[in-house]
């Protein structure tokens, strides 16, 4: 690919953050499958000398299990380079001396090992899927409404996601339900929160303008990255919709067909 003047902003790039689901792989039966060309694209980035980190709102698995799943698909990724909401919220809980009531997926529970959950003074919700029963939501509600100043953390704020058997409600829906019930505003941990992206930037030791984020979610990936000063590329895979390219509120710095094309653009123009 020849250098393209509209991609000049890539000249100063020293680091890349990749979203995972919808960019590296499509979720589905047996954990999903790699998107064509993405395994090689990740390898090329790793060999390029650019800093590389991964950023996901995945909360149905611990990072260890998640990375293991990706290894099976052919991605060679180390756990320490993956940033997800659960470890981020654990840091916040420790810093603020909070004891959470957890409404999260069973497979995420190990991320909270060592966290004091006795007499909770805040609530953490993640994508709990089948565990989002009336009973469980009511328990979280009762904890919140019983607090003098309710504190609610939401691991992401997605509306829904796609699975092989159709669209599924995401954590944001239940976050909204609890916000309405208790008249509180949740603190969102994960994309698109700036705090979350800043943690990744700190780890890379780079300035925002030196980093480009590649994702399939216009609001959470591209918009989130842009609002903390990074560039955002949207790939036309995963949950991408053609209407994203004329969205009135978020405009990606560039749209590319897939991760392979994104890596071509980055490596050619830097």
């Amino acid at each position: 690919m020849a250098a393209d003047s509209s991609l000049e902003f890539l000249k100063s790039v020293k680091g890349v953050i990749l979203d995972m689901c919808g960019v590296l792989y499509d979720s589905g039966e047996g954990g999903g499958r790699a998107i064509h060309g993405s395994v090689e694209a990740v390898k090329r980035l790793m060999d390029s000398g650019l800093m590389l980190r991964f950023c996901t709102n995945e909360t149905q698995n611990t990072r260890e299990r998640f990375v293991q799943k990706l290894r099976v698909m052919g991605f060679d990724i180390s756990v320490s380079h993956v940033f997800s909401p659960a470890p981020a919220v654990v840091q916040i809980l420790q810093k603020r001396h909070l004891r959470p009531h957890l409404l999260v997926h069973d497979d995420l529970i190990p991320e909270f090992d060592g966290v004091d959950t006795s007499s909770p003074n805040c609530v953490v919700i993640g994508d709990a899927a089948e565990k989002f029963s009336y009973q469980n939501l009511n328990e979280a509600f009762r904890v919140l409404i019983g607090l003098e100043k309710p504190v609610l953390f939401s691991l992401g704020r997605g509306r829904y996601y796609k699975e092989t058997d159709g669209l599924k409600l995401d954590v944001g829906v239940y976050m909204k339900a609890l916000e309405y019930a208790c008249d509180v505003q949740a603190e969102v941990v994960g994309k698109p929160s700036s705090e979350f992206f800043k943690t990744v930037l700190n780890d890379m030791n780079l300035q925002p303008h030196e980093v480009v984020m590649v994702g399939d979610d216009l609001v959470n990936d591209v918009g989130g990255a842009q609002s903390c000063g990074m560039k955002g590329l949207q790939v036309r895979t995963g949950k991408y919709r053609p209407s994203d390219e004329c969205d009135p509120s978020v405009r990606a710095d560039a749209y590319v067909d897939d991760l392979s094309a994104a890596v071509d653009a980055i490596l050619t123009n830097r």
Partner: protein
Amino acid sequence: MMARRTLKAVLIDLSGTLHIEDTAVPGAQEALARLRQAPVAVKFVTNTTKECKRTLFERLRGLNFDLQQQEIFTSLTAARNLVEQKAVRPLLMVEDSALEDFTGLETSDPNAVVIGLAPDHFNYQTLNKAFQLILDGAPLIAIHKARYYKKKDGLALGPGPFVTGLEYATDTKATVVGKPEKGFFLEALRDLNCSPEEAVMIGDDARDDVGGAQNAGMLGILVKTGKYRPADEGKINPPPHLTCASFPEAVNYILDHLLGSK
């Protein structure tokens, strides 16, 4: 000086206004009987998500109130009427005890969602089903949007949070049919051949009964029984047309001041 209105209809709230749990408000039966002597239509209007009309009717009859089942208009009736007007087939997320008010409606292969208070239906699977229907264009009809309610063992989530969640997921707005919606009061008057200006509402809830009715163009009378708390009358603007001790006083006022003949 305001021109005297002709009064054609009186809407009366049930719980908190005519009775509190299993006890009638003192003098309420007799006051209702006096009101019935006057040339006005009477309707009983209430927000309910789990009690069907028959249950409400039997409770009031048990307390010796003189009324007919068809004089009761509830948020469930309002939801049913809306479903019929739209000619849609609803997925009914209401408790079994409320289903009776929806008998006869076609509910197979649903293309609408009616959501009441139904903890048994508020599981991930059913909410996903509702979500997918709404995404496909099904209207979302909410009986009401209460945040929570009080149970013997503590507070419990009402339908409001679930309605709000579905609204967020689908980027749509629910049509709310219960009090204090303007449409609720207009629908209650529909078969009485009476405009809102010709009707008065009596209730113990300043916002849902009185505020809602006045917003629809009716007069509102707040009674200091049931859930009434001091200073409630100051919580709505404009204030209630009248605030009085209880239902019998409200009836006296109507007979003396709102009906032409003394």
